């Protein structure tokens, strides 16, 4: 029997950022580049239904709208930021919510420009994450994305996750839920300085535990590298599969260098600039 395949996105708005809009935009790109169905898990169903074309989604899963005290600063380039709730605490539920046997879980700010992630479905690994990453601004210190703290374990990105429904992966996602619930304990145990709950950290800790508190092969790397720009950079233009960024200059606050990518998937952490691009594109449709 053929296994079902698809992508799952979380879209929980926080009053500042429109994750629903980002999810609609990304679902269209997923259809175009990966030809996969997309399920969205959202707490803003009415807003989604009344403002967007819901046919881009294979399935819409409603979750309860909840406030969170997990606040963080979201930058829009190096000189501007807004503090907003960081509603990232439902990712562990994707194992049960996903309607697919084989799932790609993605952040809504991961911009798909090629079909490389399709290769996951042909590979023999049941769980894949990005470990190796590449900052489009070469000068920044990226050690925070190599280890979760100075003296502890390897860092894994939770931005894109491929998983099959296996008993081991069910244990893995249950473990992430446990780590989330006991976050203050685990962040101290793994010497994470910030009290802010981050899925990258929770996934990294869970991988470490599942590997027998060691490095190991429980998780395999996703194909390619995780390319990213931080929220100190600005997405300036998106034209089909090419993007132009303003990347912050070293030691020159508020100054930028232009950079272009072509046919490369990029994690665009400046969500404000991403939304400006999406707005412009929607106006042109």
């Amino acid at each position, binding site marked *: 029997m053929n296994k079902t395949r698809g992508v799952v996105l979380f879209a929980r708005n926080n009053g500042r950022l429109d994750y629903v809009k980002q999810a609609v935009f990304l679902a269209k790109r997923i259809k175009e580049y990966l030809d996969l169905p997309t399920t969205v898990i959202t707490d803003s169903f009415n807003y989604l239904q009344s403002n967007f074309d819901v046919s881009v989604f294979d399935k819409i899963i409603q979750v309860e709208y909840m406030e969170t005290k997990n606040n963080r600063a979201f930058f829009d380039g190096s000189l501007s930021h807004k503090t907003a709730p960081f509603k990232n605490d439902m990712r562990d539920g994707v194992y049960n919510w996903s309607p697919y046997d084989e799932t790609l879980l993605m952040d809504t700010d991961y911009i798909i420009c090629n079909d490389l992630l399709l*290769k996951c479905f042909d590979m023999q690994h049941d769980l894949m994450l990005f470990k190796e990453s590449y900052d489009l601004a070469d000068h920044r210190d990226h050690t925070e994305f190599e280890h979760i703290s100075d003296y502890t374990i390897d860092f894994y990105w939770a931005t894109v996750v491929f998983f099959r429904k296996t008993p081991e992966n069910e244990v893995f996602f249950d473990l992430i839920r446990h780590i989330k619930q006991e976050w203050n304990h685990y962040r101290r145990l793994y010497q994470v300085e910030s009290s802010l709950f981050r899925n990258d950290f929770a996934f990294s800790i869970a991988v470490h535990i599942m590997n027998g508190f060691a490095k190991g092969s429980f998780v395999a790397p996703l*194909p*390619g590298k995780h390319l990213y720009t931080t929220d100190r950079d600005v997405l300036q233009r998106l034209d089909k599969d090419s993007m132009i960024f303003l990347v912050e200059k070293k030691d020159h606050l508020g100054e930028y260098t232009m950079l*272009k990518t072509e046919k*490369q998937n990029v994690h665009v952490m400046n969500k404000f600039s991403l939304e400006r691009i999406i707005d412009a594109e929607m106006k042109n449709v």
Partner: protein
Amino acid sequence: MDERLDKALKFSNYMVTLNNQKRVIKEKFFEDLLYFNSGCQFTVTKELITFVGLLIDRGNDTDVVLTDDNDIPAKIGDLKSFYADILNTYFTAANNYHTKYEDLRKNRSVEKLVNYE
């Protein structure tokens, strides 16, 4: 500002952009070198091409075990077909890289480097 310094700073800005673009197209080249077979991922390197060529020359061209990027052993049924595929992957990637590199080399302004009108 001193005209000499002004010109140097403009050139410096161009060089930063040029070097950034070179890094990005090199990363694209590395990504294009990925080849997938039997559920495994192989980065096509000159070493892999030479090794597979050597195996074929010595008559080992069926059911050959190779280890992939994650050190997973993969049994390759038809090594000649595998060889043709990795050669194709390598030259497609290298040709694209060369084309993009030459474009960068010819463009002498920041705007032209990123085709920003």
